């Protein structure tokens, strides 16, 4: 328990760096969403917003403007500078608490998410803020708190549409948490088979996938988990809490300006973190190939570390792209269809999946007496 002051400062600096990276990515994800949606709909997307000096640089400035890279700045400034209305009929305390509460889980989960590896003297160690033994349990514990942002926003707004949005979100998240938890049990059974005891640690799980990625060995678990994250992050086709065709804007109807911006950023932060968790659980983290090959392995030293971070980020962003792709391709479910899907399809399928893999893993394990 003896911690030097410099150690504490260093921990805080590292945590701040990871948090800033996550928030920047979620900002860029907003731009990516606008670009992806415009490509899917045959449009160009944001390509006019420019900054006074940077945009005037001959080729670079124009290129950045056409790519829409200044758009997040404009969006952020707009949200900051707009009037921040607080309706008279709201419960002020929870009205202000809700946007913050929706942001906290995303930033907290990143703490245990390993995003790269450092190889020194042939021993790999994780690049992560806190290498917990119970990594995945921590993620489930914290992510289950994500519902409070929405439920509190809906209740504190004290008007009908936000209220319906909040109630829907709480029911939906409880329903899909079950199948989410059940769907990844086989992964940890696999990782904890005799001879490979990784516990619930995420880094060991990634190292375990060096031989073969989780998604190849158990694609069905991966599919169930992916659908569950869609439901947990309230993305289309599961965006019941804010289905704009029935509920105006759902739980954030009464919100404007920066408080709305916080909800918006939190949604994208959750998508990125969810994609990161999916990458760690099923896409082999920073392992470049789905199946092990001795020819391609990450080198030691800083090059290898940077490569591992790069591979991890590329996979995560591909999953984020998948989220957007689905959003602009599929129509929204009806609310009763979502509940029916969750309880009568996802949950039984997750149970079957669990039992099936328990049998498969038992057959694979050599008998030792």
């Amino acid at each position, binding site marked *: 328990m003896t911690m030097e002051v410099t150690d504490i400062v260093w921990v805080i600096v590292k945590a701040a760096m990871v948090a800033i990276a996550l928030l920047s990515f979620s900002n860029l994800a907003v731009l990516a969403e606008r670009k992806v949606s415009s490509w899917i709909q045959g449009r160009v997307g944001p390509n006019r917003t420019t900054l006074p000096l940077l945009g005037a640089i001959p080729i670079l400035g124009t290129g950045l403007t056409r790519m829409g890279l200044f758009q997040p700045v404009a969006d952020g400034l707009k949200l900051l500078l707009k009037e921040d209305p607080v309706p008279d009929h709201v419960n002020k305390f929870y009205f202000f608490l809700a946007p913050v509460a929706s942001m906290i889980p995303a930033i907290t989960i990143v703490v245990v998410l390993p995003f790269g590896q450092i190889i020194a003297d042939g021993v790999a160690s994780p690049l992560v803020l806190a290498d917990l033994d119970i990594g995945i349990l921590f993620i*489930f*514990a914290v992510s*289950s708190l994500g519902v409070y942002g929405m439920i509190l926003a809906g209740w504190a707004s004290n008007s009908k549409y936000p209220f319906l949005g909040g109630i829907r979100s709480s029911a939906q998240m409880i329903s899909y948490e079950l199948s989410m938890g059940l769907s990844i049990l086989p992964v940890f059974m696999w990782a904890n088979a005799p001879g490979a005891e990784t516990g619930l640690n995420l880094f060991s799980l990634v190292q375990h996938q060096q031989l073969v990625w989780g998604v190849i060995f158990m694609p069905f678990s991966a599919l169930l988990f992916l659908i569950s994250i869609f439901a947990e992050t309230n993305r289309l086709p599961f965006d019941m809490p804010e289905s704009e065709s029935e509920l105006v804007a759902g739980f954030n109807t009464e919100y404007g300006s920066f408080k709305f911006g916080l909800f918006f950023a939190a949604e994208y932060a959750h998508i990125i973190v969810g994609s990161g968790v999916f990458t760690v659980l099923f896409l082999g983290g920073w392992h470049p190939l789905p199946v092990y090959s001795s020819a391609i392995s990450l080198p030691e030293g800083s090059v290898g570390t940077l490569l591992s971070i790069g591979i991890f980020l590329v996979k995560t962003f591909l999953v984020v792209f998948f989220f957007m792709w689905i959003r602009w391709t599929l129509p929204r479910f009806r609310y009763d269809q979502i509940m029916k899907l969750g309880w009568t399809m996802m949950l039984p399928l997750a149970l079957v999946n669990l039992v099936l893999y328990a049998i498969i893993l038992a057959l694979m394990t050599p008998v030792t007496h």
Partner: protein
Amino acid sequence: MVDFLFYLFALITVLGAGAVVLSRNPVNAAMLLIVSFMGTASLFVTLGAYFLAAVQVAVYAGAVIVLFLFIIMLLNVDAAEQFRPDYVTFAGGLIAAALMILGTLKLFERGENFTLLTLQELDPVGVSTQSFGMELFTTYMLPFQVAGILLLIAMLGVVFISKRDKETRKDAA
């Protein structure tokens, strides 16, 4: 450091729990209950029981309180605000408090040394989640199964009651 953290988290737990009882607004009470649960989870962490801490947050803060809020919000909150405790509730509370105090006194009477021992110090082998699971599914298998059956009974009760209500409504119509 650990001592200071223990008193901090214990204070959060107790104050949170007290505020739950005293608050008139049910939503405030539910949110304060989360604060209290978080305090308990933090206490588990200081004891080295990470698994219990995570489960405490996931189950109580993440699921049970969400259901509480769900029900509070679906009910008429104004009606709930006018709730005044009657004599039976009052007497029940008194008995519970008396039992608590008695139990605590009994603990102190045993002459146990109340220095803080982390789980690692108490039982160096039994800390990991794996050994926790091992014990649960071997030594404590029977209590575990009994708890499961208890939950099943509660679930069947809910199904039975909600079904019966539907049937009587159908009869009335």
